[in-house]
């Protein structure tokens, strides 16, 4: 029996879809059977980020309105045998899906997959209600901006009313130099306000935009900071204890030696 995790944020543009794609990919890298669901009906883009747009034949609305079987709508990833995507419809709107419909689909998928990662639309209306309907767990994505933290707080309040585990937090798009200069919210401040467990921090990394434009999740690049961050999050979802990534840039060997001798770097 699998586990359904919804990735949500309230505010748009904080990186829900990117996070969904990358956590899904990282879990697949660890040889788990993963299914991604895009619930942003009418504004789908998880398929674009995954580079699977050209493979879509049926979508989630077709499944709910019984124009096709669930397995017909699932798209196999081009890189991993164990990764699938259930795309959103582009032509309908969010009222085409019901909470009950979602619950049935997720219940079916749980039989075959270890993890079901649900990409939630922005907002707190029907689309959000649909996305969280079948989920067992929730991950809230925020950026170190006041507006985004405010919306995350609202979402956590709504999630607490549902029968699911306490949501966990990802802080995305961290810019270390701005935190240092005091122009961006501190990680500790965000965690204190939202008071939920932190499951990962992702540094603002150009690689993320670059790879998503190529339809390749960044989690596949071996060494970029964001890629390591997403793989760490996946490991924490699997229950491993992984320390948070350091925000400092890796320094060269020479400066480490200098530090060792107590010289200023």
């Amino acid at each position: 029996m699998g586990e359904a995790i919804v990735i949500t944020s309230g505010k748009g543009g904080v990186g829900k879809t990117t996070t969904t794609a990358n956590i899904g990919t990282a879990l697949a890298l660890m040889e788990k059977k993963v299914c991604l669901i895009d619930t942003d009906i009418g504004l789908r883009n998880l398929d674009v980020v995954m580079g699977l747009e050209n493979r879509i034949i049926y979508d989630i609305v077709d499944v709910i309105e019984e124009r096709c079987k669930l397995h017909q709508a699932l798209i196999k990833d081009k890189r991993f045998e164990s990764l699938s995507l259930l795309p959103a419809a582009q032509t309908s709107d969010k009222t085409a899906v019901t909470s009950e419909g979602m619950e049935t689909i997720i219940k079916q998928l749980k039989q075959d997959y270890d993890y079901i990662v649900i990409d939630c639309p922005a907002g707190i209306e029907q689309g959000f209600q649909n996305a969280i309907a079948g989920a067992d767990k929730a991950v809230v994505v925020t950026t170190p901006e006041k507006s985004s933290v405010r919306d995350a707080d609202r979402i956590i309040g709504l999630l607490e009313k549902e029968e699911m585990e306490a949501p966990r937090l990802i802080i995305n798009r961290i810019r270390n130099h701005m935190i240092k200069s005091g122009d961006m919210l501190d990680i500790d401040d965000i965690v204190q306000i939202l008071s939920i467990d932190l499951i990962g921090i992702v540094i603002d990394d150009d690689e993320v935009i670059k790879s998503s434009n190529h339809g390749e999740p960044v989690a596949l690049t071996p060494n970029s900071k964001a890629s390591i961050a997403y793989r760490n999050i996946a490991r924490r979802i699997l229950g491993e204890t992984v320390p948070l990534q350091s925000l400092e840039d890796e320094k060269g060997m020479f400066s480490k030696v200098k530090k060792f001798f107590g010289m200023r770097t």
Partner: protein
Amino acid sequence: MHEKKQAITIKGTRDGLTLLIDDTCSLEAIFKELDEKLGDTQPTNDGKLVSVTVKLGHRYLNKEQKEQLHDIISQKNNLFVQSIDSEVIQREEALAWKEDSEVKTINRIIRSGQVLEITGDLLLIGDVNPGGKVVTTGNIYIMGNLLGIAHAGANGDKDAVIAASYMNPTQLRIADCISRAPDYEAEGVYMECGIIDKETDKIVIDQVQVLSQKRKSLSGFERRMSNG
């Protein structure tokens, strides 16, 4: 000697008349006696009004009966009813009083978009996040961070206070006074409280220690009793 025990005793004080009404006889008898005692002269326009305080003892009058009593007295020459006091209240009223003066303990975080409304005093163990709101008819005590909106004395009690372990609110409201955070970014304050300053009629923030001088009757029940 007495033909019958007098149901109504009238006392004159400096502030006017006090009617002590025996609480064992029937209401009809009282109305009748009142009528006789107070005379049947019609109100005249000259002379000063005399205020009357009615003391009912252990008798309970409902609203209609009170109005009736009120009318009988007011019809008389230059009398007006200042108050009708009774030693007893209805169970319902008493429970409402209790509800109104109880401290309710709530243990959760009030997040953005959530509103917590309470009758009486609130002891919140947890934070009020930005965008969250707590509203009470009494006082608000927060063991945690107050970052959102707190509204104490929502029914108009200007003596209500708001106290928090850490205070950096978006807005403080007491009764119908509102104060908001400054436009520049400000650090919050620890262990402080907001009260209405009697002289300026504005909300001021001060250390919680001043409460012991400025709001001596914070402890609920007696305060409500004396205020009615």
